């Protein structure tokens, strides 16, 4: 094939033979080879979602065992150390291995489809971030199964995490595992940021971007800036434990509060990173079932950006009880209260969308709409703990546990379930069963509230977090029993979801391209989409390309059937970030083993570091493998338009 530095992209419509040619260019090799080398964002996205749900199930089972231990006073089901490892592993699993990866999975799958591109900006990085995520998850769980899971809560405060008080490998597994996972999060975040800026359909200017993408964009930008904080903190802890440094060692001038600062500089923005993409899913899906566009697109987008920006300035509200100066506490308390304003804007926009729409009560609608209620409850309890005097009373009680679960289940798990009901037909070609879906929703909703609403009271009555048992007759018995019953009902609800997924995969109703009559680009392609996503690159002239004929306000002339035919190997447009005008034809990479090999090398590095007293050469071998695969990856290729064209 001749290769030019410049080309006029031909426009046209897709013929069956043209589609066949694209299929040949874009499809992944079948079998084991394809499994390890694919860079297709759809395959990677689905893998992400499945893996995250496996971790959700693991974290859920851990939670049920904890609830059995706490169901009645003075129980002996778990020893204190077992309880510590279980609750810490539960937190680690849900917060790090489920909550963000599941959102990355949906975004990986959906972004190119809703943006009108043929893949993510860095398809191989996409594969890398998935493999690293799996490898780091396995790494940390190996520790857990060896009896060396984390045992100091997910935020792992020093000095208890120091070697003196915590010998053994628990903390080493956890600290290295978190640095490991941080690489996956960071490269994935960079991929989202660049895709958002560059890989869209022609005409998709910044005000026409699907609202969902804004949530993942802000979360990713934040992750780029805050993940290094926690990676550094864990790395310093590991140095303290293994090489005698003194970052957190009081006897040599070390600063335990430095750990808390570094952890929460990361930790609080991270909480927003776990909810903003999920809120984006609600903003995307809820209006479809209200049969109208989202009320206040611009307000919701600006609120998303404002939440994230303010989110960098609230971390100290986790440290009100550590004796910081009043001025610092007042400042962070102020921001923690102000941050509710943009959240409220989003809530009002959602409510107005339902109010002025004609809601169709599907399971997806129920999950999305229930998010609003749960978000308000979780938001109000957060507002309360953002105030210094209230926090001094509530800090380290079950009130905070109730708050975090309302936030993380309410604005992560519930919207994710809604998203699954909404986009499952696109991913598989089949609808999830609605009747089972209604049972699924109501069981989860009732179980969740039964478990966690009374827990606020448990906290107000003074029950501290992280205790493995409690005495009878101090007023906590009934409440804890109710919470345990609720937790099991919630688990049944999640089980119904899994059953629905399996039965619908086999015998669900066929969906067709656009079963919900939705307005965005992913619904213009078949379900499931072909490997190349779009046969011709769509042209976008409004925010809702598939609703243009019926929306008077946004009369546009988007085209999904006629557009650029980019078919010289794997190609897609790069566009200008603001106007969405194509300014380059990007050559997309072919399937590659480099991401997998790089992950193998990285894993060897971390295992070598973990066992550095015996196995340090393994880290060297890993580094050589990693460097070699990275060089091979980056080596300029003529077929990717990265080298000087040879004269014909």
């Amino acid at each position: 094939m001749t290769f030019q530095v410049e080309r006029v992209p031909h426009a046209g419509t897709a013929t069956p033979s043209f589609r066949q040619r694209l299929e040949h260019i874009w499809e992944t090799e079948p079998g084991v080879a394809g499994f390890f080398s694919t860079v297709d964002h759809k395959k990677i996205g689905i893998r992400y979602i499945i893996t995250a749900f496996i971790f959700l199930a693991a974290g859920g089972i851990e939670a049920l065992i904890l609830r059995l231990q706490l169901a009645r006073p003075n129980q002996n089901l778990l020893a204190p150390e077992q309880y510590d490892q279980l609750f810490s592993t539960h937190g680690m699993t849900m917060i790090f291995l489920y909550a963000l990866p599941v959102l990355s999975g949906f975004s990986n799958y959906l972004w190119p489809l809703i943006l009108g591109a043929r893949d993510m900006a860095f398809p191989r990085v996409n594969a890398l971030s998935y493999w690293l995520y799996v490898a780091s998850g396995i790494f940390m769980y190996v520790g857990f199964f060896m009896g060396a899971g984390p045992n100091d809560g997910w935020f792992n405060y020093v000095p208890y995490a120091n070697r003196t008080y915590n010998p053994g490998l628990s903390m080493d597994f956890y600290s290295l595992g978190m640095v490991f996972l941080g690489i996956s999060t960071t490269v994935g975040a960079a991929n989202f940021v660049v895709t958002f800026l560059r890989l869209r359909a022609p005409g998709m200017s910044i005000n026409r971007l699907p609202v969902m993408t804004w949530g993942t964009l802000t979360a990713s930008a934040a992750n780029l800036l805050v993940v290094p904080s926690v990676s550094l903190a864990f790395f310093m802890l590991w140095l303290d434990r293994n090489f005698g440094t003194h970052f957190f060692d009081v006897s040599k001038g070390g600063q335990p509060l430095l750990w808390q600062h570094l952890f929460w500089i990361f930790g609080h923005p991270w909480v927003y990173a776990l909810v903003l993409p999920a809120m984006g899913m609600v903003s995307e899906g809820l209006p479809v079932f209200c049969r109208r566009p989202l009320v206040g697109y611009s307000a919701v987008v600006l609120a998303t950006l404002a939440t994230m920006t303010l989110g960098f300035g609230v971390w100290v509200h986790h440290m009100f009880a550590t004796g910081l100066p009043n001025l610092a506490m007042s400042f962070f308390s102020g921001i923690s209260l102000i941050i509710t304003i943009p959240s409220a804007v989003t809530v009002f926009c959602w409510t107005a969308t339902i109010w002025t729409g004609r809601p169709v009560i599907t399971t997806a609608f129920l999950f999305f709409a229930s998010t609003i209620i749960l978000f308000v409850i979780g938001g109000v309890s957060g507002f309360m703990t953002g105030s210094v005097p209230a926090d001094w009373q509530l800090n380290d009680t079950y009130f905070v546990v109730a708050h975090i679960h309302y936030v993380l289940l309410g604005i992560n798990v519930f919207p994710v379930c809604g998203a699954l009901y909404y986009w499952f037909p696109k991913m598989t070609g089949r609808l999830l069963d609605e009747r089972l879906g209604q049972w699924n929703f109501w069981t989860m909703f009732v179980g969740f509230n039964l478990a966690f609403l009374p827990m606020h009271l448990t906290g107000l009555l003074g029950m501290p977090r992280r205790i493995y048992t409690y005495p009878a007759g101090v007023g906590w018995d009934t409440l804890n029993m109710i919470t345990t019953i609720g937790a099991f009902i919630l688990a049944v609800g999640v089980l119904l979801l899994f059953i629905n997924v399996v039965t619908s995969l086999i015998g669900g109703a066929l969906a067709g391209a656009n079963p919900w009559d939705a307005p965005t680009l992913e619904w213009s392609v078949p379900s499931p989409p072909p490997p190349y996503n779009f046969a011709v690159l769509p042209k976008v002239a409004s925010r809702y390309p598939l609703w243009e004929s019926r929306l008077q306000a946004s009369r546009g002339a988007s085209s999904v059937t006629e557009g650029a035919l980019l078919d010289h190997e794997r190609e897609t447009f790069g566009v200008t970030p603001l106007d969405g005008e194509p300014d380059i034809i990007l050559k997309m990479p072919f399937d590659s083993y480099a991401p997998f090999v790089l992950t193998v090398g990285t894993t060897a590095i971390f295992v070598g570091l973990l066992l550095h007293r015996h196995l340090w050469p393994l880290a060297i071998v890993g580094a050589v493998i990693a460097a070699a695969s990275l060089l091979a990856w980056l080596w300029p290729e003529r077929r990717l338009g990265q080298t000087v064209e040879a004269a014909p």
Partner: protein
Amino acid sequence: MTDAASALPVGSVDRRASGWYGVLCLIATESALFVYLLFSYYYSAVQLPPTWTPEPHPSFAYSLPATIAMLLSSAAVWWSTRSLHGRALGAHRLGLAFAIILGLIFFAFEGLEWASKPYMLSSNLYSSLFFTITGFDLAHLAIGIVGLCAVLIWSLLGYLDYRRESPTVIMAAYWHFVTAVWIAIFFTLYITPYFR
């Protein structure tokens, strides 16, 4: 696509290549890492009495020549990039080679600096911070040197010219970033003790 007839570049060109945006993200996240490293230093400095540093004013004997080498290597990379745009391939390669050599000189000065210190990583809080901060810088520098070597090899293999220049531009951005990081570290470790 308002004008269907206009020709578009294909593949990696100038700052429209995805790799350019990628290196900007890398610089953002790595800058954040060094911000947190220096934050840890300043946090400890304000919490502890001035005697927390083993030497009141760390010596410039090796750190100043190292800084000059680093600045010169950035200049060499800048000259190399400019030469590539001016289609002077020889100067392009020479600039890369100078930058690599100056990077190695920086490495050598830092090695002498490390050897000259009377304390080790595990001596006290200051030494832990000193070796960790400079160690992170040296690790970034080592990756940069490998990267510059790769670009030089690609240039010698005839992969690069004024149109296909992305590897040079991307690597140059990373190298200037490493220089900027060193300036921040130099200011923190060697200059701020005079402000007490």
